[in-house]
């Protein structure tokens, strides 16, 4: 079935553009970059159609990667129903965003005028690693993709590497992800120790018989990895900063695909989690806490991309709630619909930024509804989808998660519903600030984006509206995941929908009907407002408790202590002792021929004396 072709096509695009893109015209770069991803999407479609019902995993074995005693790691790809969903999302959304990037990056040179081909080369490399991550049939192959997408994320966040904030943001993302990956690595070691294998099929079939403590520990360690990659408390801090990258990057990597890798991995490991209820509880609690916490931060952000960044953190929290309460398919469902509407929100805000020639501050927007109507309407589609208004896509997935949360623990449902209201509020706050009222910007002629950007937006708008209805992901995955007790509860559904509507209504009152009220509210709750505006000072707390101690400790102890004193001291000490000895021996080389002769004589006399003492030659 040539599964290897799926990731290899983007890799070829990366290689061609990366090696020769500097000499290519932009059109040629586009052909290789977009063409390879679209071909990959087509191959995914063909593969999935050809594989039929996919009730059991289809595995392709390529070669044995590592062999040590009885432990082997194979380079295997597998496709089952979960993988099929992920493949379609990654390549489908990926193709749309690549097409969109043609328009968005058209005027982009980047540092050193090498930006255009470099951007697409990195994007293709990202697609390659993401597909490896999704296709891998064991934890180690998944981890290869996992690290690879982290690398591409770093490279693309720091795309404008001549700007300090961009490189700082890239470093932050990379370093925070290392913490998570440390947990993931430990989890893999523990899996090898207890199961003797890293293959999904082997590990999961043995998981049922393993002791609960082992499974709980593995589950928690995997969750550390997932929290890093999917930006959950306490490792979420990198994602909002990651918006320093170009907007299509935010849409593809930091909204639709890479950040959902953690959700995918935990859902993939469900046989471990179903036997480790404590680990699941931890996931659910972290998820709901992140969802609520990030949503409240989203209220007060003024950068349009930051609003959606916190929104992404929050929505990822929802997905973890779904996974944590056992509704794995609902979590994946929300992953899919979120990919639609959040990619659309980011691409739409990219279109707004494009229209305003780089302006990102909501305070300098306003009244764009009449100037860029098509962008407005497509973003509105995403807005109603994320707000959970029926029958749009976000409603279905969020409803399933909240329902499952209610059956697990009612307080999670209520917190989730409040979060849904806040979500609707901040998304529509951003919409109203950008598109309603009077224009407050400086760019004189906001212009609608070219068709190459608007077509992907339109497709994503249609998916955001109808994706929940037409793609019944939970139904498709029902045989894959353990069944959940079924049950509709129309009153709970109505409450969460009402929360969304109330959120929109409040946003409308505060930012369209009576704009003065918002300011006076911010004034009367000044302390709370400052707290939220500064993101609860989490970055500052991390700086004070983790970053600065590490930095100053490294500086004082490791650099000036261990490195300078011990390591350099040893190397320099050897050298300077050698120099001292040489300094003494140097005196022998006087250049005076008679002193040499004296030394020769001295030496001869010493030899004779030595021979005499030793008793002569025999």
């Amino acid at each position, binding site marked *: 079935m040539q599964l290897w072709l799926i990731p290899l096509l983007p890799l070829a695009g990366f290689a061609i553009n990366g090696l020769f893109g500097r000499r290519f015209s932009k059109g040629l770069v586009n052909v290789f970059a977009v063409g390879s991803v679209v071909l990959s999407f087509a191959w995914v479609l063909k593969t999935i159609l050809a594989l039929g019902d996919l009730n059991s995993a289809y595995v392709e074995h390529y070669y044995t990667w590592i062999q040590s005693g009885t432990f082997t790691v194979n380079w295997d790809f597998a496709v089952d129903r979960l993988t099929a969903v992920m493949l379609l999302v990654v390549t489908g959304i990926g193709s749309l965003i690549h097409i969109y990037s043609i328009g968005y990056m058209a005027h982009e040179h980047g540092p050193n005028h090498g930006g255009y081909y470099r951007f697409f080369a990195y994007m293709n490399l990202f697609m390659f690693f993401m597909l490896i991550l999704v296709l891998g049939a064991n934890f180690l192959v998944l981890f290869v993709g996992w690290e690879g997408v982290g690398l591409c994320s770093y490279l693309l966040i720091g795309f404008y590497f001549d700007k300090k904030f961009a490189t700082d943001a890239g470093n932050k993302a990379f370093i925070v992800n290392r913490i998570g990956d440390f947990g993931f690595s430990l989890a893999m070691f523990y899996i090898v120790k207890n199961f003797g294998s890293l293959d999904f099929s082997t590990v999961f079939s043995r998981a049922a018989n393993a002791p609960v403590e082992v499974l709980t520990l593995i589950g928690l360690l995997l969750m550390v990895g997932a929290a890093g990659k999917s930006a959950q408390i306490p490792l979420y801090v990198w994602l909002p900063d990651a918006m320093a990258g170009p907007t299509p990057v935010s849409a593809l990597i930091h909204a639709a695909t890479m950040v959902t890798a953690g959700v995918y991995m935990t859902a993939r490991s469900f046989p471990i989690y179903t036997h480790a209820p404590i680990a699941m509880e931890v996931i659910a609690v972290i998820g709901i806490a992140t969802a609520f916490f990030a949503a409240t931060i989203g209220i007060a952000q003024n950068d349009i991309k930051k609003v959606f960044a916190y929104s992404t953190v929050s929505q990822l929290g929802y997905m973890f709630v779904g996974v944590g309460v056992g509704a794995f398919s609902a979590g994946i469902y929300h992953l899919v619909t979120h990919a639609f509407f959040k990619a659309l929100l980011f691409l739409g805000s990219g279109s707004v930024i494009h229209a305003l020639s780089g302006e990102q501050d909501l305070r300098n927007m306003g009244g764009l509804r009449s100037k860029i109507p098509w962008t407005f309407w497509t973003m509105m589609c995403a807005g109603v989808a994320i707000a959970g208004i029926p029958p749009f896509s976000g409603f279905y997935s969020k409803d399933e998660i909240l329902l499952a949360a209610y059956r697990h623990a009612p307080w999670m449902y209520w917190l989730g519903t409040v979060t849904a209201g806040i979500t609707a509020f901040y998304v529509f706050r951003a919409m109203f600030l950008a598109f309603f009222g009077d224009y407050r910007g400086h760019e004189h002629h906001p212009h609608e984006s070219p068709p190459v950007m608007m077509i992907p937006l339109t497709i994503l708008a249609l998916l955001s509206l109808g994706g929940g209805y037409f793609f019944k992901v939970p139904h498709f995955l029902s045989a894959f995941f353990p069944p959940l007790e079924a049950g509709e509860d129309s009153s709970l559904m109505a409450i969460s929908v009402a929360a969304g509507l109330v959120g929109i209504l409040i946003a409308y009152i505060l930012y369209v009907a009576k704009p003065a009220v918002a300011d006076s509210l911010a004034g009367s709750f000044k302390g709370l407002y400052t707290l939220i505006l500064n993101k609860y000072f989490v970055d500052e707390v991390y700086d004070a408790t983790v970053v600065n101690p590490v930095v100053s400790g490294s500086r004082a102890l490791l650099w000036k202590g261990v490195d300078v004193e011990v390591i350099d001291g040893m190397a320099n000490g050897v050298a300077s002792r050698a120099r001292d000895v040489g300094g003494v021996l140097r005196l022998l080389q006087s*250049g005076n021929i*008679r002193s040499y002769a004296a030394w020769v*004589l001295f030496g001869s006399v010493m030899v004779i004396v030595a021979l005499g003492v030793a008793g002569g030659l025999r």
Partner: protein
Amino acid sequence: MTEVPISWYLTLSAILFALGVAGFLFRRSIITVFMSIELMLNAVNLSFITFSYQLKQVNGHLFAFFVMVVAAAEAAVGLAIILTIFKNRSTLNIDDIDSMKN
């Protein structure tokens, strides 16, 4: 007539050698230093001949001839060098000839 004892020859050889060494170490003129080297060589020749006579073997004689040949060659080359040095530097003081040091 009694033979001259071997030890006399060896003592003479040692005295000559010591004189050569002393001349080599303490004289400043290159010519004198050069002659001291010849003196040392011939002191050693005397030892060779002495032992050769005592042991009734011809090896010592052969060595002596070799040394003489080498000494002659050395004298030819050495004197040429000394002449060149004197032409270039107008001095035969051995302490002034230290350009290898720098």
